[in-house]
């Protein structure tokens, strides 16, 4: 939430007349301190310049060159970008990433909200243990999550196919079929991503006033109506954050798919970050990979911006 909340907060804080400003000239007193805050932000400022500004600047520069990591970086103008737009492998990775995101984000949203509602409900028993169970996947690294689901969905040895064949079905090609393989990645990503969103939802559900539900009950509103017209609007800001963070996270997915099927079968399920990694490190086309990086960055920013706008408009209508 800091990502979206912080800019306005920082801006108001910086305004010369804070709420206490005019009184007894306190704001002037604060302006005196320069050394202490400078020291306090020194470490992070250096880190910011070294590992953020520097890579971003040279990355942008290299995206206009044919740099390969050694020797001279030859300026090629927009050649990398125009080559990228004609690159089938890039489009394949992009569409696969978008499909993956479109599947994971809604699924995670629904399951996280369901889990949060059930855990906050006065009707459920054993929520303490259930909460721990839901939370364990968050502790497990993407690599190990990939291994766990690979073990479960192994084509010749997995439990899932064993159960299916035991029940008289025929083994499902979870690994050799591209779409099924992606589905397993979707399951695994949803499984791993639920706990975090669930925590956000639990906090949000607590903040919806109980009196709203009581009033609605007196008016004879049904459970679904209460959920639809009280709960959902009440947690709308959290829904926005969950969807935004989920989208950005899914667009960057790498480790999980790497362990689960290595972008396979073949290169069918190569997602964007894997494409960038392969181009930059395995084929050492740093200039070209940098161009792909900046396209991904533009997409991420566009996604964030579009969702922010949508959120603003919806808030405005209410």
């Amino acid at each position: 939430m800091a990502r979206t909340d912080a800019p306005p907060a920082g801006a108001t804080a910086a305004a010369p007349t804070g709420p206490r400003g005019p009184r007894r000239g306190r704001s002037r007193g604060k302006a005196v301190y320069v050394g202490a805050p400078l020291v306090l932000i020194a470490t992070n400022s250096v880190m910011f310049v070294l590992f953020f500004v520097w890579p971003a600047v040279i990355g942008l520069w290299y995206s206009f060159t044919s740099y390969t990591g050694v020797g001279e970086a030859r300026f090629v103008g927009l050649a990398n970008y125009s080559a990228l737009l004609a690159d089938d492998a890039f489009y394949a990775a992009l569409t696969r990433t978008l499909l993956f995101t479109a599947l994971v984000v809604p699924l995670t949203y629904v399951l996280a909200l369901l889990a949060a509602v059930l855990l906050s409900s006065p009707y459920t028993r054993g929520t303490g243990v259930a909460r721990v169970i839901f939370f364990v996947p968050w502790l497990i690294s993407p690599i190990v999550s990939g291994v766990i689901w690979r073990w479960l969905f192994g084509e010749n040895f997995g439990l899932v196919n064993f159960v299916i064949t035991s029940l008289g079905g025929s083994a499902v090609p979870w690994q050799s079929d591209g779409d099924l393989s992606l589905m397993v990645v979707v399951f695994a990503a949803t499984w791993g991503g639920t706990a975090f969103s669930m925590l956000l939802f639990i906090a949000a559900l607590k903040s919806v006033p109980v009196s709203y539900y009581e009033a609605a009950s007196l008016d004879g509103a049904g459970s679904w109506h209460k959920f639809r017209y009280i709960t959902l609007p009440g947690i709308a800001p959290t829904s926005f954050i969950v969807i935004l963070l989920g989208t950005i996270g899914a667009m960057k997915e790498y480790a999980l798919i790497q362990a689960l099927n290595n972008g396979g079968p073949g290169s069918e399920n190569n997602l964007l970050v894997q494409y960038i990694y392969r181009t930059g490190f395995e084929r050492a086309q740093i200039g070209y990979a940098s161009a792909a990086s900046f396209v991904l960055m533009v997409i991420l920013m566009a996604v964030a911006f579009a969702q922010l706008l949508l959120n603003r408009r919806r808030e405005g209508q209410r």
Partner: protein
Amino acid sequence: MSSRSAAPLEQPAAGLPAALDGSTGRRSSRRRSRRRAELPQRLSATAVLWLLAVVYGFPVLWFVLSSFKPAGELFSYPLTLLPEDPTTAGYVQAWTQFDFYRYFGNTLLVAVITTVLTVMASAAAGYALAKYRSWWLSAFAVCVIATTMLPTEVILSPSFLVVRDLGLYNSLAGVIVPSILTATGVFMFRQFFTTVPDDLLEAARIDGSGELSTFVRIMLPIARPIIITLAIFSFQWRWNDYIWPLIVLNDPDQYTLQIALQGIVGAENVNWSVLLGASVISMAPLVVLYLVFQKHVMSADMNAGLKD
């Protein structure tokens, strides 16, 4: 409301939203039988909760149980839930023959050092943002937010070149140093210190305490809950980090757990016996840490956007 239009809506969701709002009466006539109506709802909501919990818990359960099977039993049909002949051979082999003791040590070193540095740097920066006003502090805040828009995954190759040019390539320091700055950490502390009354700072000033010593002696101790929460989160991020160690480390002696695991997964013939044991070894510390500090994780101020 007409029952015809309501039925399809209420059917699938009956147990859940009812469970959500703490009321039972769908129609006013039913309010009288509230007591009796509660039981089925309690049962259905609990049933759905536990069905979901089983779905989420089962993959890990199956995985951990499998890790105690001897290599020959792993693939022998029919599969059994419990190992018939439990063994820790996979664990022993992973720990000794596959050098997981070393990867474990490397990962622990990286996670602990990074966490200490991250907590210190974030606390200092967050405090500065909360308690001092100036245009360059606002600019700094915007810069920190910007880091979330351009994560390492996006600028892989240039980040690699920077680390190489700084002479940090193939060293654990190359994994540690670039991970110190986290926007989440900075804003968690900023949010916390904003709630600390300015009077406390003023009082310290009147007593003649220097700015930095006020921060270290008064402010840091009261920020203990945030320190613990961020420490847990940071430890988890660094312990599970994959892509950054992957591009920085080249020498197998320096590998962290996640890279070593991926090494086994990516092999031509996956050694599942070792892989299962090694995976369980790698996730055990976090599960223990979580169980010990559960309260701090669950009550974390989630408004600070805890994801890195």
